[in-house]
């Protein structure tokens, strides 16, 4: 969604204060560097003329900013109550842990998949839900998850 980020940067440029650009700039940096490395955070701070400590402090507050490199497909399983009540959450996570052979918080050795737990994705009416990078998948069951993993792996070969 790089063009979206450019648009966001444009709309952000209308903001009256430079500091207000921090989140937008961090998104752009994360897009360019893959994650918010020390260098990426420093560059954001330089561009916005803000202390590095302040930008880093802000970056680490928000869960969508990653200060570690992620796998190509970062799978985030919603552990909200409604997902749990409809067979998602812990059960879905356990299924994926088994399939991928990793625990939540880890990546597969080939760097293809990483697995995480996330909080409510506002898919309670269409739960269970998970997200892969920027894409949301809803109304899941084990068949759909199997197909999704195959499809993602297929994208790499293509």
């Amino acid at each position, binding site marked *: 969604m790089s063009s979206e980020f450019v648009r966001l940067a444009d709309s952000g440029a209308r*903001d009256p204060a430079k500091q207000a650009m921090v989140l937008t700039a961090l998104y752009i940096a994360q897009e360019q560097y893959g994650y918010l490395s020390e260098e990426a955070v420093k560059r954001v701070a330089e561009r916005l003329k803000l202390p590095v400590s302040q930008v880093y402090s802000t970056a680490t*507050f928000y*869960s969508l*900013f990653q200060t570690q490199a992620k796998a190509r497909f970062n799978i985030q399983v919603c*552990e909200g109550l*409604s997902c749990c009540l409809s067979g998602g959450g812990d059960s879905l996570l356990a299924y994926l842990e088994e399939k991928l052979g990793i625990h939540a918080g880890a990546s597969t050795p080939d760097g293809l998949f990483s697995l995480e737990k996330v909080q409510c994705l506002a898919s309670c*009416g269409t739960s269970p839900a998970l997200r892969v990078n920027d894409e949301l998948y809803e109304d899941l069951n084990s068949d759909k998850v199997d197909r999704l993993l195959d499809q993602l792996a297929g994208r790499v070969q293509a």
Partner: protein
Amino acid sequence: MSDAFEPILTRNIGIPNSDKIDVYLKRGGYTALRKAMAMSPDEITAIVRESGLRGRGGAGFPAGLKWSFMPKGDQTKYVCINTDEGEPGTFKDRLLVEHDPHAIIEGTIIAAYAVGAHRAFVYIRGEFFLGVKRWIKAIDDAYRQGFLGKNVLGSGFDIDLSVHRGAGAYICGEETALINSLEGKRGEPRIKPPYPAQIGLWGMPTLVHNVETLANVPHIVNRGATWFKSIGTERSTGPKLFCVSGHVRRRGNYELPLGVSLRDIIFKYAGGMRGDLPCKAVIPGGASTPVLTADQLDTRMDFESVAAAGSMLGTGAVIVVEEGTDMVDVARRLLRFFLHESCGKCTPCRVGTRQLADILEGLVAGAGKKGDVELLEDISRNMIGKSFCPLGDAAVNPVLSTLKHFRHEYDHYVEHHRPLAAG
């Protein structure tokens, strides 16, 4: 959707391309804006006040009153559209943003005109990827048609609107945390007072409204306060989006008048329970609101009635739980959420959510011990009213309310180290 109730907020939803400006215009969109521009700001505020519209983000504060708190005069003022929907169980704002963004924009322009603000911001959850796209497209189109920008519809009124994307923090739905996040800071709440209407974004008066609240405004302007008051109850007026999830047959958003009973929401609209098991409990307004039991299903879903039943209307997110569900586990899952989302600023909330979550995890893992239940109560009571923002208070609701109604399930865990359902 309901068959008997004329949809208002959801009138465009289900129509192809309802997010596009030409569809919105064809459906009578932006007529309220034209009407509003021919009125004085005070007249509009008076109508909204008279309508009784209350905030739909959870607190239920009267919208017109909030507008009237904004100072007069021509200092810089701001309007923020709170699209940081993240309360577990809630998925109504997402629906409106993805499928009817222009209704929210129209309401926002009217609100900005009424309070004399010329700059407005959308604050949207970073996770709402589609919502961000829809917002940006809708705003661009509204600029192109002259609804946003300089001299709106030749009225002489200027208003700019842009999108600010959050980055994953539930707390930013709290209005002062939202303001800090908009300023590019950590999304930690500020102490109130001063309220944002006095000192808000960049120290200037700021009106922060939930998406659903603003979506009501064009209808109120078009059809009048009396019409709006004819929907709902005397003190909780208008339509409400109820997000129904959990163990029901037809999960989803239902637009119904405030004051509809929980029983009707579940059995008349959401198709009843999903299986053969009866209803055991309902969380009526999202994760922050105390659990109600099956014998409270005749509670009417308006601000006063839900409060009288010992809970809160909250966001109108109805999570339905069937018999056989482990309520200690429900509390545990909800506490995980609050633990994750506590921003860490206030010690009672930061440490309290950790303690509560640890005890609950221990109980469910079969490691409960004597005194755990009393400790849960003690910690909860000591968290109430001791944090800057309502998160610290909200976090104890799942614990205290499940303890109130299902204490025997906790005791069983302490005694037998397994759920009551497992015998």
